[in-house]
């Protein structure tokens, strides 16, 4: 059940929200979808869900177009959270689940399981407006996964949650993947994407700037990070050949270099200048890649 976007373009008037986007989202994987605000993520999701039609290109899932006849196979957690404020948790989850093709009985049973799992069984008969924002988010997450979708789109699922609840939801996401759900996961939090996704795409102004497997992306990025902890001043390295970014830290320096050779050159340069506590070469983080590709304006 591969989700395929082929040369997809969406324009709103003269504004191009998504431009010539081609993606392949592999079956039973968590696919990271990154991009600054306004990069075209929500528009892409709406096109995948069939809420908007692309001006050009095709979106297919297992060779078919997604429409309302397949909506029971799809789960969606929109970025803008929302539930009926006046309805009880059980009432609205059952209502939304029935619209996804579940029976009332199954929906209640599943809801009980998920509330238990998220350690909030007492919310069953509470009105949504009585819950805290974070807890409302758990309820919304449940409504997206209750019907055991085959394709799950999560738009910023962890924003606004405390670390304990982030872990709870992360575990749930991983388990869903293990049980065979294909997940598209959008986030601003690089460490979450790095932790969960093997495949990803970084969008910038409607275009994919990076696309592929995480390992491959890191390898082909070329640049690496060098961490030096030393007892002497390192500022003289700032204009050293091959250094692309230089940041002084409390214990030394955090340096981005263009390749491994530069690391060797730096080591030769500093040896003998004093005591070096640490000299470590690291793979680039997704954060580095994102900033590099999307621009330093975004953090």
């Amino acid at each position, binding site marked *: 059940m591969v989700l395929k976007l082929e040369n997809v373009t969406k324009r*709103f*008037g003269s504004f191009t929200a998504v431009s010539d986007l081609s993606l392949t989202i592999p079956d039973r994987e968590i696919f990271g979808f990154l991009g600054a605000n306004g990069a075209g993520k929500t528009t892409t999701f*709406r096109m995948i*869900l069939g*809420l*908007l*039609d692309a001006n050009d290109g095709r979106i297919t899932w297992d060779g078919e177009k997604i429409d*309302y*006849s397949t*909506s*029971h196979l*799809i789960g*969606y957690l*929109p970025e*803008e*959270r*929302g*539930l*009926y*404020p006046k*309805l009880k948790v059980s009432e*609205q989850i059952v*209502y*939304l689940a*029935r*619209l*996804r*093709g579940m029976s009332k009985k199954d929906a209640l049973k599943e809801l009980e399981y998920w509330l238990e799992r998220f350690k909030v069984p007492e919310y069953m008969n509470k009105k949504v407006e009585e819950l805290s924002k974070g807890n409302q988010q758990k309820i*919304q997450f449940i*409504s*997206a996964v209750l019907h055991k979708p085959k394709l799950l789109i999560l738009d910023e699922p962890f924003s606004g949650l405390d670390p304990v609840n982030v872990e709870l939801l992360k575990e749930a996401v991983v388990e869903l993947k293990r049980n065979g759900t294909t997940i598209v996961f959008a986030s601003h939090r690089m460490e979450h994407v790095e932790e969960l996704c093997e495949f990803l795409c970084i969008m910038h102004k409607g275009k994919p700037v990076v696309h592929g497997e995480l390992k491959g992306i890191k390898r082909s990025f070329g640049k690496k990070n060098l961490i030096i902890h030393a007892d002497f001043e390192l500022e003289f390295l700032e204009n050293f050949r091959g250094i692309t970014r230089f940041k002084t830290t409390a214990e030394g320096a955090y340096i981005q270099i263009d390749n491994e050779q530069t690391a060797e050159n730096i080591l030769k340069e500093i040896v003998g200048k004093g005591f070096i506590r640490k000299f470590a070469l690291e793979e680039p983080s997704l954060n580095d890649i994102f900033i590099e590709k999307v621009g330093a304006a975004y953090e």
Partner: protein
Amino acid sequence: MQLMSKFWIILFHTYLSKIKTKSFIVTTLITVAILLALTNMSRIIDVFNKDDVKNILVIDETTQMFTPLKEQMKIIDKELQIKSFDGTVNEAEQAVEEGKYEGVLILAFNKENLPEATYKANSIADTGVSSGLESALQQIKTMLTAAQINLTMEQLAKLNEPVHFEKIALEKDAKTEEELDQARGLVYVLLFIIYFSVIMYATMIAMEVATEKSSRVMEILISSVSPVQQMFAKIVGIGLVSLTQLAIQLAVGYYSVKQNMSSMKGGFFDSFGFDNLPIMTIVYGVIFFLLGYFLYATLAAFLGSLVSRIEDVQQMITPMTMLVVAGFMIAMFGLGNPEASFIRITSFIPFFTPMIMFLRVGMLTIPVWEITLGIIILVGTIVVLGIFGARVYRGGVLMYGKSNSFKDIKKALHLGKK
């Protein structure tokens, strides 16, 4: 998963959750209470007047007028009890001042041997008592005078007979003056119900849509059910809510009117023509109510889909409300003058048809083709508005931001275009 069943899920969800709301229960109870109060008016008045029998002392100096006066009083006003008093005027006045009696009436003959009377009471504000006594005496005086000039009873009856005056409409099938008056009452009540319900339920739809949008549930809803299906399921669902309320009102009203039929006769309810309730008027009332509802509900749904915040709903639907109010105003004018050509023309304008065509149907006897044409134009408008509205809705529900102007309709149409 059949698409149809989602339609029903939304429809029943909407219906059940609206039926349970406080606003529905309260408005239903209030209107039912008003209906019951109106139809039971005469009973309610009776309750307050029950022990209001007024005793009046009569000093009959003529010694022959008391008995005929008593007879007359029985016919004119049973609540006025007269009692012969043998004492002096002073004693009688004292009894009145003590509050034992309402007043004292002194009867005498004048020079021409005709009755004259003096009525003394603590207060003469209650003209009901004095005028009752006065008209009874008038009768007696007429009879006495007739006897003096030797008129027979037949001659007297002839003299009192009112002039025969009949009004006949030349137009075929035209309603008689009496029928028109009766129709007016019922049409007025039903017009008011149509007006009130259309505004209330159309606003409810706009609010519902705006609530779903502002609470962002919409995003989830539209990913499971198409916006168009949602919109129509909601319109039908709330339509059922309004029908439920209407049915309760009609049932209570009808039952209560039947129960109180006898006591309502002769009162101001005569003008409502309830004793032979024209069923067709009610049937047309329901038909035009439904058509009016669907017209304005469709309008309200897509207007509601354009706003992002609940606060903006009222502003957005004001032009629509104005249309309903204008229709009602014209209908009120038409109640007094249903034949006016202005009324005839406006009854074919779809936004006014529900009220004004109904007014004409209820008040006049108009050709079937006119009713049919009006309904066809109206249904056509509903269909066009439904198709157009569905497209605006599709785009509107995806739009967020400062959107509360009519320019956004164009934007929404663009966004909704598949």
